[in-house]
């Protein structure tokens, strides 16, 4: 167990180091003035330029520069946006929770719809309902996320006029930015119409969540269905059956857990897809998250922002993937078997 932990930590540290190194090198490849690319400030005078050069150690060797970059990074001093001159750390701290929020909604829907439906469909496989689920999941899985989002907007926002199409909450509600998660912020904001605000935020969340979660849900359905079908053929299920357990008891005691184990790592891998999909959907629904923010930064040629934003997203995906992989490995009882080692 400790060996496993050390192995994962090692993997993580090396990858993070590589990422940080890459982000350090980016400004050297961007066009324009290196100093502006790094600091986000266009120096107005020679003194200012010299002061900035000194602050970023631009006249020193590349190693010293990297050291300065690292210490700034850890101190939370990520520079300023070259367009708005706003502090990037604050900007990212503002945008990132929104993405996380959207991702969590989608994950929630995918888990609580995808896994139960997958179980049912696997247990009742080859009957018409199962066929329906399989067909639906293939179709759903094949939709490009951005296309789905646009179809939803056309249908539910423009034709039926049921749901709003942009943002997290109507701008009429003055929700303060406290945690960055809109529902928590609504409660903390002490509005006089909290109930309406929550309802409004909920309505805003429906379409973006659906657009992202349909693909993931379909994947979850397919994995779970396959897995439970495999488990139901195992010898211990037949043994349990012969001992006179009801199907329900068998499901709870034996098949449920055993079916989950092989799918957990696959589900964990979906997290990174979920993040990317969330970032795509954000731009369509004007969701004020990191994806939307990065697209703006790219469009405005805001190099310091692109660098910091990319680093944060990459770090997030990396940390999440490795942690989840570690957890699934740690709780998997078959981890020492040669069969797993071969996978």
């Amino acid at each position: 167990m400790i060996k496993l932990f050390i192995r994962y930590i090692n993997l993580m540290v090396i990858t993070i180091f590589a990422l940080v190194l890459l982000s350090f090198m980016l400004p050297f490849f961007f066009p324009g003035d290196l100093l502006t690319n790094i600091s986000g400030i266009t120096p107005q005078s020679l003194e200012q330029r010299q002061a900035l050069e000194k602050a970023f150690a631009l006249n020193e060797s590349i190693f010293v520069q990297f050291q300065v970059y690292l210490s700034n990074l850890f101190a939370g001093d990520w520079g300023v946006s070259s367009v708005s001159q706003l502090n990037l750390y604050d900007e990212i701290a503002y945008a990132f929770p929104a993405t996380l929020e959207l991702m969590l909604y989608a994950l929630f829907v995918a888990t609580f719809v995808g896994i139960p439906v997958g179980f049912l469909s696997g247990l009742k496989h080859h009957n018409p309902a199962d066929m329906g689920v399989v067909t639906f999941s293939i179709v759903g899985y094949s939709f490009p996320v951005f296309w789905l989002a646009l179809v939803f907007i056309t249908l539910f926002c423009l034709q039926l006029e049921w749901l709003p199409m942009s943002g997290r909450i109507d701008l009429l509600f003055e929700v303060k930015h406290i945690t960055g998660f809109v529902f928590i912020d609504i409660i903390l904001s002490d509005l006089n119409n909290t109930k309406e605000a929550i309802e409004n935020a909920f309505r805003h969340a429906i379409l973006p969540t659906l657009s992202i979660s349909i693909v993931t849900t379909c994947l979850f359905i397919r994995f779970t269905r396959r897995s439970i079908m495999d488990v139901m053929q195992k010898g211990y299920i037949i043994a349990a059956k012969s001992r006179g357990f009801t199907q329900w008891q068998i499901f709870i005691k034996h098949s449920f857990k055993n079916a989950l184990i092989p799918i957990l790592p696959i589900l964990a891998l979906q997290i990174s897809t979920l993040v990317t999909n969330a970032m795509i959907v954000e731009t369509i629904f004007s969701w004020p998250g990191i994806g939307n923010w990065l697209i703006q930064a790219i469009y405005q040629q805001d190099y310091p922002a692109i660098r910091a934003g990319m680093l944060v997203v990459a770090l997030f995906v990396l940390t999440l993937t490795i942690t989840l992989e570690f957890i699934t490995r740690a709780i998997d009882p078959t981890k020492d078997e040669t069969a797993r080692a071969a996978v």
Partner: protein
Amino acid sequence: MSGKGGLLHERINSMTICGDRGFNIGNFGDCTSRFMRYLCRVLCAIFLLAGCGKQSNINDDAITFCSESNPTYFNPQLDTSSTTADASAHQLYDRLLEFNPTDGRIERGLASSWLVSNDGLTYTFQLQRDVAFHQTDYFTPTRTFNADDVIFSINRWRLASHPYHEVNGGNYPYFDSLGLDKTIKDVKRINGYRVEITLYTPDSSFLANLATDFSVILSQEYAQNLLEIGTPSKIDYYPIGTGPFKFSVYKQNQYIRYIRHPDYFLPTTGAEHLIFDITPKPSLRMAKLITGECDAIAFTSQSDLAVISERDDLTLLEKPGLNIGFWAFNTSKAPFDDPKVRRALVLAVDKTSLLEAVFLGQATRAKSLIPSASWAYQSDAPELGYNPVRARELLDEAGLPDSFTMDIWAMPVQRAYNPNAMKMAQLIKSYLNEIGITLNIISYDWNIFRENLTLGMHDSVLIGWNADNGDPDNFYRPLLTCDAIPSGTNRAMWCNKDFDALVQQALLTDNFEKRKQIYKQANELLFAQMPLMPIAHAYQYQALRSDITGMEINPFGGIGFDNVERMP
């Protein structure tokens, strides 16, 4: 390897059996329906909460305007972009004088009356009393508006030695482009509510200039406070004015919030809250207007106009605009410094097709700079027609090679004077292709686009101009005089002493006929030199939801929300 093979084998076996055993699992029936019930309940809850039908109005006392871009500052003195003017000029500030949006006459604003001396050199303004400045969480005024605020606001852009002149760039494009800093001799305080402005030379457009979006009145007391704390630059980001709304929050790329100024000196009926929802995509703005997320939108696409007129829940206001869309050549760069080349480029493009394809007939053809809505319009102004053969001849005369590459910058935002610069650029590209010119189309983010234009990095650009007042000087001077190059409104970077002299001469007289004659000469000069190709004068549109009242198109500048409200 053997382990893997075993697994695979087992899987194949299980797959073959499962068909036969399917019936066994029938016992799960109960649980199936339980799950189904659970699912149904969740779905019902979602749809109940979502509610069918139209979005309810949470706050009837708020107006949401979907604007197209981020303002650069909250002070229009520093920027001529209409985005900045929309977000600040008529929301946060007042001017000494105002235009009547219907007939363009000058009316009183913060000045209750004014007097012009017989020689046209001295202007005396009597100021309104008891005009309160905004009280916000970053500033509490201790006094009302008086002469000091007028002097501060004018001197900030006029005097290079003023402590606030260099704050936030020290660039005042509107005033610089008109050379107003050189026209004004002195701004004097007669008493607390009387100000005297003296000029060096008579200027028949001076009063009109004081009524433009850019001549806003700032708070001298606030500026003094900021200077004492050592954060003068805040003045243009955390604005204080006397306008009908006060600034609350600005989140870049997302929104701007305003709250009604409770002590506004004029009676208004508008909403308590005003929100600018920054939505750069025109299609998204239109969609949000339909869903009711926006009450009014900036810059409607020409192709959406028909949709808006057809729908009962949307209204379209319309007015002939005081604007011009043009294609400017960077005359400071070879080969565009040669009038022959510029004339050739103009000859090569069929203006009629641009008007049809881009404006969909919602514009009039531009012959010179001035639209027909202005008194100075010259109906018989000379114009170059479409003649690609002559164009090629001119290029050969100018000694250009058979094939040649140039850039065209197409502005990334929509404006009335050019609703789709990208499409126009593509059309021009195909025309120029016929005379052997390869055109590269270039576009950036709007703020960066204009910055780079001011630096003169372009070969040619599709852009235009919205008049800030009804005076023809407001077209000729900012667009093509030498002074307007550094201030960044002369996109052709064209400097011609004869032209400047004509424009100056036109201001010395109040006689409309005489001025018209002078502008006619200027038009002839422009026709010969062709620093830019005039394309169109567009109609101005304002799309809004039908339950909104009090909205008016202001042909002389930014949008105002003083009296805009939702009908009960």
